[in-house]
């Protein structure tokens, strides 16, 4: 089964498992238990589409992302990218694939090297993958900066000179540098101020249309996920409890946990909020 490029889903995850052993003993270590962080999940991401992965802290959503990208080795299960099995590939084997799958992180303060200038940070993937160098590299980086809403004069600045929202834009420019097909976004807006969140969500939306990107969008905020995602998968205690069309999951959830999660999201409308509380209080 070597489905060539163009066939099937861009990313297909089947029965993905990541267990962390709990060990006891000093000289003779033995496993006494295991933390089932990701416990057999299956999902797929289509080209140019967004799958939202929602869950609370400890649900295993970040571990799932890392296992998909092979940043941690899955315990078992299959991860197929463009039809090719990537689970278990070595670092060296993964390297050419890293062009195609990039990641945007939650904390724009921790995910940029404070000693490097913006131009270097954004240009680094291009240089490492030997895509561009010298003058061409600079031109490409400047284009990227403009595309994400920064200006060319930011090229020689350091990360500390930027606000949270601008730093997230730098992170997005870096992720896009290699023209990936899949971008995994791990809580990309949850550390940002409210007035900035909408800017970044809209930017991600525009970039998806322009570059035909597929997103695996991981977040705890189901409102944001519903806005950006085509489909939503709800994760709870290492398992997927529900998956479906984004509006459908939010409007008529089938699983009890999804219902509980949706009922807990505050409604920013005092009257509706009061009505709902009166309804649930019984």
């Amino acid at each position, binding site marked *: 089964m070597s489905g060539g490029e163009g066939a099937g889903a861009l990313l297909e995850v089947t029965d993905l498992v990541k267990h962390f052993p709990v060990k006891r003993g000093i000289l003779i270590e033995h496993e006494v238990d295991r933390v089932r962080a990701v416990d057999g999940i299956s999902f797929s991401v289509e080209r140019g589409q967004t799958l939202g992965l929602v869950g*609370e*802290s400890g649900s295993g959503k970040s571990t799932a992302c890392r296992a998909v990208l092979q940043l941690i080795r899955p315990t078992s299960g299959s991860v197929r990218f463009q039809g090719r099995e990537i689970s278990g590939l070595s670092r060296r084997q993964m390297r050419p694939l890293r062009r195609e799958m990039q990641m945007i992180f939650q904390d724009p303060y921790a995910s940029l090297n404070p000693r490097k200038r913006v131009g270097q940070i954004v240009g680094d993937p291009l240089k490492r993958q030997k895509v561009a160098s010298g003058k061409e590299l600079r031109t490409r980086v400047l284009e990227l900066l403009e595309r994400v809403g920064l200006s060319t004069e930011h090229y020689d600045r350091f990360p500390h000179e930027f*606000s*949270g*929202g*601008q730093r997230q834009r730098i992170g997005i420019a870096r992720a896009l540098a290699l023209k990936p097909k899949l971008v995994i976004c791990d809580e990309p807006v949850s550390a940002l*101020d*409210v*007035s*900035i*969140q*909408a*800017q970044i*969500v*809209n930017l991600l*939306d525009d970039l998806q249309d322009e570059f035909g990107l597929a997103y695996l969008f991981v977040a*705890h*905020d*189901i*409102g*944001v996920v*519903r*806005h950006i995602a085509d489909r939503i998968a709800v994760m709870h205690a290492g398992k997927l409890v529900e998956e479906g069309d984004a*509006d459908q999951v*939010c*409007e008529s959830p089938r699983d009890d946990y999804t219902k*509980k*999660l*949706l*009922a*807990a*999201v*505050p*409604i*920013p*409308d*005092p*009257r*509706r*909020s009061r*009505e*709902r*509380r009166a309804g649930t209080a019984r």
Partner: protein
Amino acid sequence: MSPDQPLLAVSGLRVGFATEAGTVQAVDGVSFELGRGEVLAIVGESGSGKSVTAQTLIGLTRSSNSSIEGSVKLDGQELIGAGDAQLREVRGERVGMIFQDPMTSFNPVYKIGDQIVEAIRAHRDLSRAQSRRRAMELLDSVGIAEADRRVDDYPHEFSGGMRQRAMIAMALALEPVVLIADEPTTALDVTIQAQILRLLERLNRERGLATILITHDLGVVAEVAHRVLVMYAGRVVEEGTLEENFYDPQHPYTWGLIGSLTRLDRPRPHRLPQIAGAPPSLLELPQGCHFRPRCPHEFSKCQQLPGLEARLADAPAHRDRCWLGPEQKRERRQVEGQIGLEAPQEAPGG
């Protein structure tokens, strides 16, 4: 102490911090009142001055590089310039405070119960056994199951939500009249957040506990607050009742905040309305209205700072800092189509 006197009256509060780059005026002329049994939400983004305002109320921003002006009166008693002993009595006894991160608010090497006992014994002449019984009652009253056993747990044995409950128990230990809650649910999962909000609401209802809730989340505000202050770059830009703020907001910044929310009870818009730009640096504040550079409605008058005034004839307590007339505001809000009331209402009721 007349009954109609507000419990807490803050007027002209200014807090500045001297830095190497110059003075940062974190809070610039904030005034408000808090009545008995009232929940006042202070809403704003990072750098708006909401937390500094709250901390200054109980003297937590006093330091050699800060300058504090204005007046904070609790039951008529002035707290700005009050002595340390007096402030110590106010903290805990009269005003309790809970913080965003319940993990760092407890000392990790002492048992939860012992920390509450210590807080009680510092202020009350009770024996260890009595204080311990009180700590158990408190933990039980904030919804911690098996409080008699849990009282001997260490903070790491509690989950995030339980820690925040324990934090609230400790803040209530001396039966304060005011509770300051600074982003009390921001670090929590939504299902836990809902429980903590219900708890705060119950305390407010049952004990008449006046609460200042500091948050950036308008959803949280809609669930528990009675009145709202919206802060931007150190100043209050709008003040009103919960309903006024959500259904008839007067300041373009408030419109932007409400408009940019993702809402599950509505069909999703094609694009999220967004506020352009970013909050200003407190070291380089724009002249006049601080929101001017980000405001799509800016006009010549905005070069001057508008006062915080009531501009609507029928709502004397609804105040804002925007030069636009009420009619202009209504029209523009409609054009932007951002605001709660004007959006389509055909969404299925949750």
